[in-house]
């Protein structure tokens, strides 16, 4: 049977995270957006608060010190975090699920401290010449005895400026297939400070100011085989197993952000008067509200239903792609209409709407563009019908 309500625990989890965002994140957002920086002390304070709440690593199983939450509960946490700016919520420790592939002493060095929130990770796939076409990556590693010598670069790597180590996907060879040669990809754990490896400031983005993207460079960087996460040449196996989680998180973040934006917009339509009445009395405005809330609810259900499928152990690839696609595009429309409803003031940085609108833009690009999500969805539909 399908339950469409939340359990008491799930409701409390969502309420608690929402309160955290309201008290600890919202007061700093405008300043962080303006300065483009999060003061170090504030970042540390946020992480420590989350640690004391026992929410660090909520997306990991209890056996490794995580929260042991089901996918729906994790999605609720992400939804509520979406109400706050990425620059600040990035200090809410929730490392990449890929780290579950850690073995032996990798668990002590990376997995356990990351789950606790004592070490921060970043994840690097994208390169200047390999975006959607990840397998086209040029960063490569050559074997040298039991070590690997890495050369190449990665860009757009989120919050690598804060990272103690980076999970990096690197080409380690090529195989011949019926459709021509194909790169073999391996996943490595790379510590900040490894000789030949550098993390530099990336570009200034219109979205999520204060949430930095970085450029990683490898110049004859030597990595021992013990830094391989998962199996040699099988990097994408572990990536595919876990990347769905980040797409679901993006969808949930967008739902939370849209809800926050809507809740701040609704009262304005009652308070703002023109032509002697609340602007909400004009159908031109009230129908916008109707469309906005309908889309937010639709995106929320799509997202929670996809999470529910994961909890049931059902195939959810297409559903997650649909949720990511729809929620990110919904957020663009909702933030755009919120500005329209606020008129000129909507564009001014005295109010948060121009920031929401700018921030929304990246959601349709990262973690797989809208086009790539449509590709995933349509392939899922058509592949079984093709011979």
């Amino acid at each position, binding site marked *: 049977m399908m339950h469409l309500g939340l359990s*008491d625990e799930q409701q*409390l989890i969502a*309420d*608690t995270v929402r309160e*955290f965002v*309201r008290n600890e994140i919202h007061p700093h957002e405008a300043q962080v957006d303006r300065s483009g920086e999060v003061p170090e002390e504030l970042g540390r304070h946020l992480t420590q*608060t989350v640690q004391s*709440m026992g929410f660090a690593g909520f997306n990991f199983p209890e056996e490794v010190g995580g929260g*042991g939450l089901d996918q729906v509960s994790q999605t609720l946490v992400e939804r509520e975090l979406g109400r706050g700016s990425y620059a600040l919520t990035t200090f809410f420790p929730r490392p990449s699920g890929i780290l579950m592939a850690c073995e032996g002493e990798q668990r002590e060095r990376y997995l356990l401290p990351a789950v606790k929130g004592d070490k921060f990770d970043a994840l690097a796939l994208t390169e200047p010449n390999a975006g959607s076409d990840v397998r086209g990556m040029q960063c490569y590693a050559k074997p040298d005895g039991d070590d690997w010598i890495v050369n190449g670069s990665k860009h757009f790597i989120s919050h690598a400026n804060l990272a103690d180590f980076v999970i990096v996907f690197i080409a380690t060879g090529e195989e011949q297939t019926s459709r021509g040669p194909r790169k073999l990809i391996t996943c490595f754990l790379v510590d900040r400070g490894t000789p030949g490896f550098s993390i530099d400031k990336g570009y200034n983005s219109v979205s999520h100011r204060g949430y930095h993207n970085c450029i990683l460079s490898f110049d004859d960087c030597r990595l021992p085989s013990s830094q391989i996460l998962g199996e040699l040449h099988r990097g994408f196996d572990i990536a595919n197993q876990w990347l769905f989680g980040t797409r679901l998180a993006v969808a949930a973040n967008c739902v939370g952000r849209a809800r926050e934006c809507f809740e701040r917009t609704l*009262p304005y339509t009652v308070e703002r008067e023109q032509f002697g009445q609340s602007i909400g009395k004009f159908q031109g405005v009230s129908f916008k509200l109707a469309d906005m809330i309908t889309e937010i609810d639709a995106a929320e259900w799509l997202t929670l239903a996809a999470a529910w499928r994961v909890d049931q152990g059902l195939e959810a690839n297409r559903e997650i792609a649909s949720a990511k696609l729809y929620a990110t595009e919904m957020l663009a429309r909702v933030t755009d209409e919120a500005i329209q409803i606020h008129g000129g003031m909507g564009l001014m940085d005295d109010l948060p709407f121009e920031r929401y609108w700018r921030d929304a833009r990246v959601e349709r690009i990262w973690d797989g563009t809208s086009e790539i999500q449509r590709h995933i969805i349509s392939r899922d539909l058509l592949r079984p019908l093709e011979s």
Partner: protein
Amino acid sequence: MKALVTCKRVLDPYIKARINADGSAVNLDNVKMAMNPFDEIAVEEALRLKEAGSVTEVVAVSIGGPKSEETLRQALAMGADRAILVESDQDIEPLAVAKVLKAVCDEEQPGLVLMGKQAIDGDSNQAGQMLAGMLNWAQGTFISEIKIDGETANVTREIDGGLEKLSLKLPAVVTADLRLNEPRYASLPNIMKAKKKPLDKKPLADMGIDTAKRIEIVGLSEPAERQAGVMVDSVAALVEKLKTEAKVI
């Protein structure tokens, strides 16, 4: 020593209160509710007293409808040990609240009752004082500090013009002011445990307490809208405005 903490479910303080179309009450349909912020402070203090070893058990009490269970679960998720819900489908007045809490105290025999100094809905600021009166216990209201020392609670009260220090003989009733502490968030492990902690329900109707209304609400109105502030660029401009516009100097 057992500590009893009261937790009322009220309109979320971050939500703008709106009056019903007929002007009879604040609209509570489909709006977010939360634990009374002063009660949250009381819960936090009880937990701190427990962590300091002065209290052995923290019992949260609420009087309200079925939804008040959520408020109690929050207290449990913060760390309270168990909860009691006195089921009432009506919002009862401070005198009735004090009578109900007296009955609960008679049964539970706490050494200390911690309450918010007032609930942010009615702002009555009476229940704690009346409860202490009925129990004939010592009371410390608007406290900003509490230390337990054997049979005594040493409290600091925030009063007009300063701080007052009192020594209360236990058992006692204290009510929390804003500066007593900053309440913790519910923790994830406690949230997961909260469901398994005991939550007893007793119907108010079975308690044989007269809760008849004695107060009639004659009318409700929105507070006057505050004018937006203006920034002045010099002291001279400020003085000029205080003279000509505000007419206060």
